[in-house]
């Protein structure tokens, strides 16, 4: 097996050292265990050999006791000693290892066996009753015993010598172990030095080479490559080198594609810059146009964001307040100039709602300003407000014009009416109080004409004023619940007195259905009805005028029909216009009294109540039908 990886090599070296150490220790421990055993054995042997002497001595002495007084007890003691000797024999036979000792032991054993055989014969003599040889046997036994004692001493000396030998062997083993261990350590150290040196060659040098390659790459040289011998390396360094090589290759590819991309980006940037230039110019032009438009506005125009910061303002606002620099234009400052008018508060109020808010007229330095707040949403249709446009318009001139017109009408009304009132009042008084004194019918008629002219002039002035008020919307239209049948009946009844003076009949046609309550101004509805019936009377010399009521959708319709002169188609179109009268011609106007404003006034009144007025039909010589509508009250409202 060939070991290639650095880690595997390291592991192998380490395991080898560990294995050698373990084996050495094991050998050492085993040797020591054996020696200790031997020592123990020597001790036991010495003890047993001493015991053998005493046991032999016991056997001889117990035999002597038996010889002197043969009893079973003494015989037993002898037998036990004898048995003991054989036990020790069998033990020592196994435990004595040394060859010389074994020979000595065999001699001792043979002598003791002879002693015991002698004693056994002496025992048998006593048992047989033969006592003559007893002393000789004891002497023979003692002779053997002396020999035994001497030889056992040799044995003991042998054992002790053996122990000394063992001691020497132990110290020799220790020395060998020490030497061997020391050399192992030295060997390991040497191996380690060699290994690290080889590693430095195997790892550090290749790493340094890779490092220098990496430095070259970071220096911009991407054409370098890893040396072939590093790539061929089979260990981790080889693997690293190969990865590094792959990295260099992919880096090179990336760099190349990046170069391509850079070129493309540069191209795109160039064209984008051109586009931006064009767009910027267009935007600038657009912006200039917008600014010019805003600056050409005659009224003050400010765009304010939600923090009340002025984003944009026009020249008119600078002129209006006499601002010199842009910095001066703040909402707070304008509010201050307007006598503390709370623009911010009004704007905030307006931003909460929907649509544009008109501020009340603001007085500023003898000028009257009209303010408009228009919320700006983030995009059209969005609810999110991002600011507002404040428009401040100087309407002083318009106000002056309006006031002078109002004043003109007031003065005209007063100044015209006063002399007319005097004419009317005085003529009527002459006729009332001094009528009998005037006998000449011509004078009477002249007075009557003067009176009538005055009244007519007063009516004309009234109509003018009425039209002026109606056109300006300066009049109140009450919203009253109207019982139309009752109202119409009363007006018809009131008009009967006038009708009686002419050869005309005025009739009210009872409605065929129940007429619901209508909504409108009672006085104004009466005025319109009187006007329509009055017109019918004017243009009907003799005949019939009818008034009727109908329901038309959500309206109550009042219809006035006459059998008068009728209106030509050409004149029908001019009805309801200012100063129009539907006579045969303009010259025919003096046929009947009137300013030609009646229908025009009626139209203004009816439309202000939400209704309509018009000519339903007309035929020359046969009569006309006029009608107007008043809305029905919505019961839910």
């Amino acid at each position, binding site marked *: 097996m060939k070991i290639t990886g650095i880690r595997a090599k390291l592991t192998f070296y380490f395991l080898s050292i560990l294995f050698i150490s373990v084996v050495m220790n094991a050998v050492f421990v085993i040797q020591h265990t054996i020696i200790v055993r031997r020592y123990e054995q020597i001790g036991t042997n010495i003890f047993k050999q001493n015991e053998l002497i005493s046991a032999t001595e016991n056997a001889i002495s117990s035999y002597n006791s038996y010889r002197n007084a043969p009893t079973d007890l003494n015989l037993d003691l002898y037998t036990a000693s004898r048995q003991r000797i054989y036990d020790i024999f069998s033990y020592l036979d196994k435990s004595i290892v040394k060859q010389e000792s074994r020979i000595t032991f065999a001699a001792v054993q043979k002598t003791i066996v002879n002693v015991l055989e002698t004693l056994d014969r002496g025992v048998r003599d006593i048992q047989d009753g033969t006592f003559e040889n007893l002393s000789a046997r004891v002497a023979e036994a003692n002779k053997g015993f002396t020999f035994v004692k001497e030889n056992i001493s040799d044995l003991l000396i042998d054992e002790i010598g053996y122990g000394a030998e063992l001691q020497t062997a132990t110290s020799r083993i220790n020395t060998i172990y020490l030497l061997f261990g020391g050399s192992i350590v030295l060997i390991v150290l040497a191996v380690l030095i060699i290994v690290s040196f080889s590693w430095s060659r195997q790892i550090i040098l290749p790493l340094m080479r890779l490092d220098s390659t990496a430095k070259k790459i970071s220096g911009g040289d991407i054409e370098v490559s890893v040396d072939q011998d590093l790539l061929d390396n089979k260990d981790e360094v080889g693997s690293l080198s190969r990865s590094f090589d792959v990295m260099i290759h992919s880096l090179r590819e990336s760099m190349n594609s990046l170069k391509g991309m850079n070129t493309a980006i540069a191209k795109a940037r160039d064209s984008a810059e051109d586009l931006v230039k064009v767009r910027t110019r267009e935007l600038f032009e657009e912006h200039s146009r917008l600014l010019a438009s805003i600056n050409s506005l005659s009224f003050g125009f400010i765009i304010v964001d939600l923090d009340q910061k002025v984003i944009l303002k026009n020249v008119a606002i600078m002129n209006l307040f006499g601002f010199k620099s842009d910095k001066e234009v703040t909402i707070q400052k304008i509010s201050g100039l307007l006598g503390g008018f709370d623009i911010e508060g009004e704007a905030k109020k307006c931003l909460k709602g929907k649509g544009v808010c008109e501020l009340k007229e603001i007085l500023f330095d003898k000028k009257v300003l009209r303010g408009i707040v228009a919320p700006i949403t983030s995009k059209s249709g969005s609810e999110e407000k991002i600011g507002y446009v404040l428009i401040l318009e100087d309407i002083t001139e318009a106000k002056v014009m309006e006031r002078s017109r109002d004043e003109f009408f007031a003065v005209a009304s007063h100044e015209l009416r006063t002399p007319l*009132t005097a004419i009317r009042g005085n003529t009527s008084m002459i006729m009332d109080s001094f009528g009998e004194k005037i006998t000449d019918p011509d004078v009477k008629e002249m007075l009557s004409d003067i009176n009538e002219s005055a009244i007519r002039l007063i009516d004309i002035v009234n109509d003018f004023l009425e039209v002026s008020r109606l056109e300006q919307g300066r009049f109140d239209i009450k919203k009253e619940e109207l019982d139309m049948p009752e109202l119409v009946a009363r007006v018809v009844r009131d008009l009967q007195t006038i009708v009686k003076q002419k050869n005309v009949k005025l009739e009210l046609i009872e409605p065929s259905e129940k007429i619901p309550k209508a909504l409108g101004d009672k006085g104004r509805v009466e005025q319109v009805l009187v006007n329509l019936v009055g017109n019918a009377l004017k243009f009907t010399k003799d005949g019939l005028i009818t008034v009727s009521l109908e329901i038309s959708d959500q309206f109550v319709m009042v219809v006035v029909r006459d059998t008068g002169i009728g209106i030509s188609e050409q004149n029908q179109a001019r009805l309801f216009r200012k100063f129009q009268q539907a006579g045969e011609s303009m010259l025919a106007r003096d046929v009947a009294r009137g300013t030609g404003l009646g229908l025009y006034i009626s139209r203004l009144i009816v439309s202000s109540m939400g209704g309509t007025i018009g000519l339903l039909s007309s035929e020359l010589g046969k009569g006309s039908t006029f009608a107007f509508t008043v809305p029905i009250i919505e019961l839910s409202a």
Partner: protein
Amino acid sequence: MKKLLFLAEDDPLMNRMYGRAFKLAGYDLTEAPDGEAAIKRLKEMNPKPDIALLDIMMPNKSGFDVLRAMKEDKDLKDIPIILLSNLSGQEDAKKGIELGADLFMIKSEFSPKQIIEKVEEFTSKK
């Protein structure tokens, strides 16, 4: 006994016409040419008039001022008042009635005879 009528009117034309009309109708008449004089004369008058006719548009003080002054004076506050004007403003009529006038009449719309009829309505109530 003749009824006493007070007329405040600055325009001589109107003044003469109404003066003649009321005298012909059998009234005693006290006149004033403007608002200030009217207030002064009304306070001095003894007995107080049975009815007062006040023009609205007068120099110094208007008919409304005279009306206010009368309503603040305990001796004058119960006298019936007719406001006369040739300004046909609905606002003026409304304001006059609110201040305590009994009637608002546009001069041009009524002949002297019609005005006297109204005056008689008020004075005969007493």
